[in-house]
Each structure stands twice: as structure tokens, then as C-alpha cells.
């Protein structure tokens, strides 16, 4: 694993077809909504979060990653009954952190992706807990083991999903 900023230049800049920037988040939202209905424990996985992390660590642009995270998060809020902005804030922060990490860490490595996704999933839960429990005063229980399991599951799924999404991008040197 290369933990140097110069690694960015070694892997080059990644870009995606424009349509994918819209379709992939929408597909993630739709699959999240649909599969949670038929698979009882699918709600452990957070596909919009994984898409946010992937775009952030491949684009390495904190501004665009922050905006993308905010938009995806607000869209995810739209499917819930919560106030708009809870997932928007958390995913904006996640996008910013992931993009900042992508500048400094070689996120092409599967091991690095696993760790980054694991940590960012826990971070998102922490942000949600702070927002809902302490800012909005809504019920939100922190179950430690459950959250670790959720982060591990998301990390594993993320590695596979990221490898699939890698097939759609083109490298620009």
C-alpha cells in the first residue's frame, strides 16, 4: 500500500461517462429501496454511501465529492420520512473525507478500499447519531456490535462494487 501523495500521479486521473454520474446514484437508490423490500437484512448495506465513497476516492476532488455526497444524501432523505438533510450532511462530510483521503492514499488497493469503507461507514453512523440524537432529539440507538457488523458488511460489498465500477471508467494520463 502506498501512503504517499505522489501515488495520485502514478495511477492517473479517472473519469466516467457523463451518464454514469446520474445513472449510478439513481440505480443505487432504486436498488436500495427495492432489495430492502425483498431481502430482510439488506438495509445493513448502504449503496448510496458506497457510491459516494467510490466517486470521492476516484475523483479526488473534495469540492465535487462534497456536492455529490450532499445531493445523493438529500435524495436518500427523500425516500425516508425524516427531514431532508440528515443523510445530506453525513454524506457531504463522508465525500469530503474520502476525497481528501484519495489524495493522500492509494485507494486502488483493495485492502485500502476495505479499510477506508469500513472507517467511513462507522463515521457516517456517528454523524447520524449526533444529528438525530443530539441535534434533532429523535430516537437513535447506538448498538456497537451491530454497527461494526454493518461497517464490515459494507466494506466487503464495497470492494466488490468498486471493482465492478472500475470497469466503467477510463483512465486519463
Amino acid at each position, binding site marked *: 500500500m502506498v501512503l504517499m501523495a505522489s501515488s495520485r500521479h502514478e495511477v492517473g486521473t479517472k473519469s466516467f461517462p457523463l451518464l454514469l454520474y446520474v445513472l449510478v446514484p439513481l440505480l443505487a437508490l432504486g436498488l436500495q429501496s427495492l432489495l430492502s*423490500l425483498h431481502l430482510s437484512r439488506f438495509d445493513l448495506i448502504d449503496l448510496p454511501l458506497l457510491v459516494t465513497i467510490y466517486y470521492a476516492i476516484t475523483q479526488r476532488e473534495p469540492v465535487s465529492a462534497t456536492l455529490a455526497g450532499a445531493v445523493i444524501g438529500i435524495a436518500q432523505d427523500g*425516500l425516508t*420520512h425524516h*427531514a431532508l*438533510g440528515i*443523510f445530506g450532511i453525513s454524506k457531504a462530510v463522508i465525500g469530503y473525507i474520502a476525497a481528501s483521503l484519495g489524495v493522500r492514499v492509494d485507494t486502488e488497493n483493495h485492502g485500502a478500499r476495505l479499510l477506508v469503507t469500513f472507517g467511513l461507514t462507522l463515521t457516517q453512523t456517528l454523524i447520524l447519531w449526533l444529528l438525530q440524537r443530539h441535534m434533532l432529539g429523535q430516537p*437513535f440507538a447506538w448498538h456497537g456490535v451491530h454497527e461494526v457488523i454493518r461497517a464490515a458488511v459494507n466494506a466487503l460489498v464495497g470492494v466488490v462494487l468498486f471493482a465492478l465500477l472500475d470497469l466503467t471508467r477510463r483512465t486519463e494520463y
Partner: protein
Amino acid sequence: MESFFSRYRNALVLIAVLLAQVIGLAVQVRRPDQDSPDKGGVRLIRSWVVNSVTPPERFFHWIGKSIRGTWSNYVDLIHIRKQNKNLQSELDRLRLEEDSLAEDARQGQRLQALLGFKEKYVYQTVAAQVIGTSGTEQSHVLLIDKGSEDGVKPDMPVITPDGIVGKTRDVFRHTSQVLEISDATSGAGVILEKTRIRGVLRGDTWGQPEIINVSPDERIQKGESVLTSGGDAIYPRGLSVGMVDRVVPQPEGTLVNVLVKPAANLSRLEEVLVITTTGNQMPAEMQQDLSDAEQKASDVLAERLPSRNDPNLPADQQADKPPEGADADVLPPVRPPQALHPDHYTPSDTPAATELVPGQKITNAEGAAASAQESSTPPTPKPATNPGTSPANSAATAPKPSGSAGGSAGTTPKPAGTAPKPKAKPASPATTPAGQPATPPTNPPPPATTPQNPPPQGGA
């Protein structure tokens, strides 16, 4: 200054985005009616998201349903006959149960009418397919494929045949959000069926419904049914919610929470019913069903209960021989046994009010005959007869002629050979068996009834 913005551009953008969303959150949370559906820009954003996500979901749902429909319609027909037989027997059993409950239901209606209690009956429902969820553990929300164009409005109860599911929240043109009872922000008024303890149901942090802030009570047992109480003005009273799972003491305080296992399988919902119209009067269809159920249940009982008649014996050797002139397929009415001691309270013994004279002792022919016999014969144990009834009613209390198919005690006596009344038909005191109008008796007796046909009771 320019270098400051360019240097901290990323952080400033993050702060600006977060600040904007925090302000947006504050505006939404500050609304006094937070639980009501969203309005304005928030509703617009939700509408965009839902309308973007639901069309593919509808498509995939349609494909899955088509595949399942093909399987169930053409392939999976192996045990249909056996299943049909089982369902038929279950239907008979349910009819009997319904019969036993029908009278209680009517009595309950009368009492509720007396008390001015407004019962909510379900008049109209809209069937909807569940096409998606919120996709997160923090929000137990379903998406259904019916919206405002189908008559759905916010805060309408959503049920399945097994039990309640939740209520509609945001309603769009062709889609609606349903807030499940397992969500931590939901609320439903419920009552425990046996102990009659009332409470508020909502979801816990794991998504299991619980009745919160209940006083500890040893009578609350696992398996007790939980019903809607109707106190929330959303769910009609008496709908099944689930069963008591266990009682959990609250960490602080002396109250307990009662965890409920929902009757409807909330994790495997495919079709739900949205109750769009309710009313205070029992629907005519339901009343008809209730009446039919009584009739059909008596038929089922007649088929199942052992009969005194042996179908293998000839007709003249049967225990219940039909009277002469009666139709062979008509069973004689069930008559109560003759009273050993005619009492003062037998309805037909009471003279008509028009014949009573204030201050005069009531006498009747039987009483006079008994007095005469008493004076001419040695004293014998005398039945406690009515001190007196009017002569006009002597026939009503006179011994009935043998073979009379007439009504039971208290009915107008009929001559022998009269055709018995058809089974399960209330006797009409105003007509003779031949269909001729009977002469109105001086003291019209009450309509003859059989145990199988309780007299129709008027509403309170």
C-alpha cells in the same frame, strides 16, 4: 484575501454546504406540525426523488409478479382439491363461530348506540402493491403504487388481512409513503384484548413495535392479542395489531414497555389495503353477511348434530314421526317441554289490559275449575296455578291436543293435523296454516319461536 479563499476552498465549500443543510433542517424541524406531510420545497424534492426511483421499481415488481403468477396459475395446482376441502371445512367452522358472535355483535351495537359511542366501520379500501422501502434501518417507510389519483390521502390507515401495517404519510400522484407501526416516530392507540390495558404503540430502536409507558401488571402474558383502540382517530377500533411478545422494564422509572409481535409480516409485505372511507353505521353488506351467517350456521349445525331419526329406518319407525298431512321433508318445530307448574308469569296467562278492572281479583276458567274440583275432592297436592286468567285466555293454558303441531307454550293452539311451520322460519301468528288470515285473538300471543330462530330484536 483571494489566497485565503483559494487556499481553503475545499473546507469553505464543505462548511457552506453543511451550513445550508443545517439551516434547512432547522426550518423543517421548527414547523409546529412535524408529523404532518411536508409542504413546499421539501415536498417537491421528495416528489422528484420518489418519481425518479419508483418507475423502475414498478417495472421490476411487475416482472416478479408476472413470473410468480405464471407459476401459481399453471404449475402449482397439485394440492388444490385437498386445499379446497380444507378451506370448505374451515369455512363451516367460521360460520358457526360467526353465528355465536353475531348476537354479541348486535348487543354491542345496541349498547354503543345507547352510550352514543361512534363505532368506525370500514366502508371502502384501495388495494395497493408495495413497490419499495426507504432502504434504511432508521426509517421504516414503505412505498406503495397508489396515490392521490386513487383516492389516497395522508393519515389513512394501511392494513393487511392479518393486521395493521401503518398509515400513509406523504401522498404523491401515483405513489404514497406508508409509515410503518415499527418506526420509532409512529404512534397508534392500542388495547390489550383480555386485560383491557390501553397504551400507545410505536417502534423501538430495533424496529419492533412496543407499547410504551405501561404500568406493571402481572396479568399481561405472552401471546395476548393486541387490538387497535380507536383512540388515535386514525385506525378503526378492533383491528388486529399483534401479540404480546414480552414485557421489558424501562431503564429508568417504574413503568414497563410491552414488546409486540406484529400480526402482519412487516418484513414481507407485497399487497396492502388503504382504508379510504369509514363510517359510523354498519355497512348494508356487512349486515347482510351477518344475517346470512346466522342462517347458514344453523344449517351447518343441523347437518352436523346427531339426529333422533335414523336414516336407515322407515318413516313410520322414526322417533320423530311427521304429523299427518305434513310434508315429508319438513321437520317439526322444536317445542319446549310443558311446564310442570303453570306460573303467573307465563305470557299467555296474563289477560289483556283492556279486560282488567282496577281492584278486581283476576280469575280464569282453569282457576275456577280447580277451585270446584278442590271443593268436591279430597285435598291433593295442587300445582301452583295462576290465581286467575281471563276466560278468553283459557285456551292458551289448556292442555294441547295430542299431535298438535302448533306452537309452543304461549302460542295459539292449532288443531291436530296442522302442517308444521318450515324449519328456520319464524312463525306468523296472524296467518293460519292454510294461509287464511286468522281471527285476531282477544289476547294476541307473541310470535312463536324456536330455539333455532331467536326472535328478531329491535334496535335500541
